């Protein structure tokens, strides 16, 4: 997984909390910075894809590892 600037652990949280927490974290970051998100909600995979498409923030990476979902989102 590529480098990131900030990390958000949304493990154990269910819809829509991972998205809401990510939105909040991104709001405090500068454009071009990368947020690493860890989630356990299987629905978050499709949700972060949709979040990226609708907000213009780039979903650089999305993967599953040992029951955890990891995402890298670059702030637009």
């Amino acid at each position: 997984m590529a480098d990131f600037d900030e990390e958000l652990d949304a493990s154990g949280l269910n819809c829509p909390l991972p998205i809401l927490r990510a939105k909040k974290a991104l709001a405090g970051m500068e454009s071009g910075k990368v947020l690493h998100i860890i989630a356990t909600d299987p629905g978050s995979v499709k949700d972060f894809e949709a979040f990226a498409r609708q907000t213009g923030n780039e979903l650089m990476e999305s993967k599953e590892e040992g029951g955890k979902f990891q995402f890298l989102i670059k702030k637009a």
Partner: protein
Amino acid sequence: MEEKKLAIIATKGSLDWAYPPFILASTAAALGYETEIFFTFYGLQLLKKDLDLKVTPLGNPGMPMPMGMEKWFPTLLTALPGMEGMMTSMMKKKMASKGVASLEELRELCQEAEVRLIACQMTVDLFDMDTSAFIDGIEFAGAARFFEFAGESDICLYI
């Protein structure tokens, strides 16, 4: 890109039905939608400072019951005293264990994200509701006020 708009009418005042308006509104706000919820009739319970919402299995055959209880509780028996309280407490425990946010938390997130919450003035008058029991930061208005926003919305939901 012009901001999209979501208008919701929240009409129900039970624990389970309180979730959709707040989940959808907070998510929409996170996606950049300008969002408004108009609370009318029983939906006004969702604006109380102290949320005392309940869920009832009565008349709701689609409600999953824990431990296969539906076998022992045919619809009529769900009317027994204490059932509502028991189901409510079970539902709350279930939600907490699954990492589902509390209603208070979702409502706060909505307010932080500047979702506008509007209480139906007519309902307040109809039921002689005490406005001091409601949370701060809400607006009291009527149907015309709702249409001003809903008429320009991209999505309009009745819940």
